[in-house]
């Protein structure tokens, strides 16, 4: 009798967990209110919430509800992988052992789903307690980051440092399957958060240390079977092949797809931002525009066919991936309702395009320090200053390798028509030198020399100019890379949330940049600075609006006191 009761109770508890761990796919295209069901909140990439319980009148009262420290212990974890024992891992640029949280969590039915390289977690959003921890035994790979999970029904999807897509049961953390997306032996790895569109998992790819080709692909939500792949450089005989000097260069031209796409359900187009061409710092070895690298590309998600493209860095020479979030904006221009896409790119430029056809409306320079371009051509593309290519004596280039923008998304607020971002004005000195016995290749070295400053900027999308600039005190001389304070979030509470240098989360006035509230992030144990490291999210749970963000290896939830 007693046992029966216990079993019944356990069964009831499990069924609650199972009911909780389910995402109604219809929520995916809706404004994120009771859920943050996909990487960007909704498909638009605006990182905007209609919630206003937290607003200018009460934001000063925000207080910490709980925190969660990322548990990366293999013991006690549900484990999977293609090898019996993980290889000793090699930390790449900006990487930290498993724990550095760059991922935007998902929030569905009271549970937060979070990931980092090799790890995924479900966390009870009521108290920050871990529900399950999944550990991937890696077969090698790159550890620069993992930007989050995707969800469909009761299933989760995330990428691994050795190039696999893993699907988990969201209720239990148990693995359903894994599928290889790219070969770790060719330096492919997976860091982008998968985006679910219909019954498709849209998966991007990372890795450019061996000049391998880039692509984006679609897989079946149930089986993981491959549906289509779209290569970011033209295949033999395709249009655009003429922008490469030869077949070898074209087929090894890179163009990784390492950030999450945005999607317009009415037009049925996904917007794919693509990375730098390869070999990375050798533009002379790949003379031409190098399509479709450093571009914004619109694809049909059902077929993977390209509908239009716009290249934001032709023949990139400085590793200025254009993998920044394409932000979908509906607004009126000259009295006409328009469907637009805005992108502030790593190279320091801002672009506004018609997202139905890719035609450009305006482009502008985001930051004063940007010095590699002499202006814009008739298509609005930046024109490179030929004197600014790497030199024997060194070319002082801004932005630095980290870019004015990087992977952390900006936010667009429909009420103000402004795009908010954190702009870094860094510099590198780029040198070129001969390498004996290496035909057709130059050595390249970039020397990091800090920079001018970092600022939050509010860009008027209709002019491309800043309405206001807030320069962060203390960011002079060595500004953080733009993502080192995380991404941004705006809300109908008339607030813009962002990390700030020195270890703070700030709520600012969208009209003026005035700082209305800040939280000081508790110091963590590792050497990584305790700045915000991911993009904040917000949602309603049990009648209360929460603000959730990560710094280093911890997740923090803030809420108004009862």
């Amino acid at each position: 009798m007693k046992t029966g009761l216990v079993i019944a109770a356990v069964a009831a508890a499990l069924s609650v967990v199972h009911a909780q761990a389910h995402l109604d796919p219809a929520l995916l295209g809706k404004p994120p209110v009771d859920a943050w069901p996909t990487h960007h909140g909704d498909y638009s990439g605006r990182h905007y919430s209609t919630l206003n319980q937290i607003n200018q009148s009460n934001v000063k009262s925000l207080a910490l509800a709980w925190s969660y420290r990322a548990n990366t212990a293999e013991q006690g974890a549900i484990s999977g992988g293609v090898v019996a024992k993980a290889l000793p891992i090699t930390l790449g640029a900006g990487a930290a052992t498993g724990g550095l949280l760059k991922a935007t969590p998902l929030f569905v039915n009271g549970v937060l789903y979070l990931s980092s390289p090799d790890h995924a977690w479900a966390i009870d959003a009521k108290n920050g307690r871990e529900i399950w921890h999944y550990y991937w035994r890696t077969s090698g790979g790159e550890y620069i980051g993992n930007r989050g999970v995707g969800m469909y029904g009761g299933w989760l999807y995330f990428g691994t440092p050795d190039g696999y897509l893993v699907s988990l049961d969201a209720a239990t953390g148990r693995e359903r399957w894994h599928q290889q997306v790219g070969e770790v032996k060719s330096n492919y790895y997976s860091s982008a958060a998968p985006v679910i569109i219909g019954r498709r998992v849209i998966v991007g790819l990372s890795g450019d240390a061996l000049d391998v080709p880039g692509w984006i692909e679609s897989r079946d939500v149930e089986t993981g079977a491959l549906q289509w792949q779209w290569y970011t450089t033209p295949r033999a005989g395709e249009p655009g092949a003429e922008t490469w000097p030869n077949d070898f260069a074209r087929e090894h031209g890179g163009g990784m797809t390492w950030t999450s796409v945005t999607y317009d359900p009415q037009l049925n187009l996904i917007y794919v931002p693509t990375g730098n061409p390869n070999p990375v710092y050798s533009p002379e070895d790949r003379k031409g525009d190098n399509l479709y690298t450093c571009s914004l590309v619109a694809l049909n998600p059902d077929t993977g066919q390209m509908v239009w493209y716009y290249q934001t860095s032709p023949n990139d020479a400085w590793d200025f991936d254009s993998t920044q979030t394409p932000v979908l904006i509906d607004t009126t221009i000259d009295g006409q309702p328009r469907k637009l896409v805005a992108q502030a790119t790593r190279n320091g430029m801002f672009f506004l395009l018609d997202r139905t056809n890719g035609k450009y409306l305006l482009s502008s320079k985001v930051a004063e320090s940007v010095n590699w371009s002499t202006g814009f051509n008739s298509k609005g593309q930046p024109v490179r200053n030929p004197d600014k290519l790497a030199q024997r004596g060194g070319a002082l280039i801004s932005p630095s390798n980290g870019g004015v923008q990087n992977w952390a998304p900006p936010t667009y607020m429909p009420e103000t028509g402004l795009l908010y971002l954190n702009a870094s004005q860094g510099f590198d000195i780029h040198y070129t030198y001969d390498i004996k016995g290496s035909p057709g290749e130059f050595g390249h070295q970039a020397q990091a020399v800090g920079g001018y400053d970092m600022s939050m900027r509010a860009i008027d999308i209709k002019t491309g100019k800043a309405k206001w600039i807030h320069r962060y005190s203390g960011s002079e001389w060595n500004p953080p890379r733009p993502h080192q304070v995380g991404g941004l979030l705006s809300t109908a509470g008339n607030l813009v949330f962002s990390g700030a240098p020195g270890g703070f989360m700030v709520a600012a006035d969208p009209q003026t940049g005035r700082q209305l509230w800040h939280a000081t992030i508790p110091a963590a144990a590792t050497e990584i600075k305790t700045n915000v490291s991911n993009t904040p999210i917000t949602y309603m749970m049990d009648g209360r609006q929460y603000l959730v963000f990560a710094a280093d290896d911890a997740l923090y939830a803030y809420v108004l006191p009862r």
Partner: protein
Amino acid sequence: MSGRAFSRIALFVFASTVMLHAQAGQQPPRPTDDRIGNRLGALTPADPAAIERGRTLYSSGCAFCHGADARGAQGPDLARSLYVTNDEGGRVLGEFLKTGRPANGMPPFPTLTAGDLTNLSAFLKTRATAAMSRPPMDPASIVVGNATAGAAYFNGAGRCSTCHSPTGDFKGIGAKYNPVVLQGRMVNPRVVGGGRGVTVPPPPPATVRVTLSGGHVVAGRLVSVSDFFVTLIDGNGVRRTIERDNDVPKVEISDPLEAHRQQMLVYTDQIMHDLVAYLVTLK
């Protein structure tokens, strides 16, 4: 993105008093072969004898078209070949070599044994690994400017001589630092260090003046500053941290190196090169 094959980013960052946000851990140390092996998922290190046998096979059968170092000649660069990087024990290579690509001038090699293919694969993978790191740059090679023009700028338009003197603080500076370090420190003396094993003098501190309500002034050496806190050491050696909110109280920072920061927005590469050419002469 990162994890670069064909570049090495040199960082000479040291903690500076005003810096709250040194870019800790942004770039990996120069990888050893083992570390690269893990990045590329090498489960077992190759047998050195197999690599040597592969090298012999390569030299006699492949080097004529693909170059002595396999980085390409008439034939493609094999360090960047997916047949090489994706190979496991010669199987992928073997499939390819059975037929070659006769239309592109690549003949078939159908008689290679499984052992030959394993050895050839082991050797070619060492070429791919080598392609991920590069010989370093010779710092002396960056001195390309005109020392006379550099001296003229130093004493004239650049106003460098306002603070620096070739017989004072810059005496022997061309011998102390290599030219890359010298150029980096010239651009950003608060962030770029002296290079391996070279200690640098601490940069002159910035000073700060905080005007509290009622006009009370707290002033001293700046320790750190952010939007929300300023920390200083006052004239009595007392460390004080003062909270700030939207520029209240008023905080005025005076940095003796500020001209260097403003110069970042002004430099032409020519001026930078000329200045370095001049500074290296101050032995």
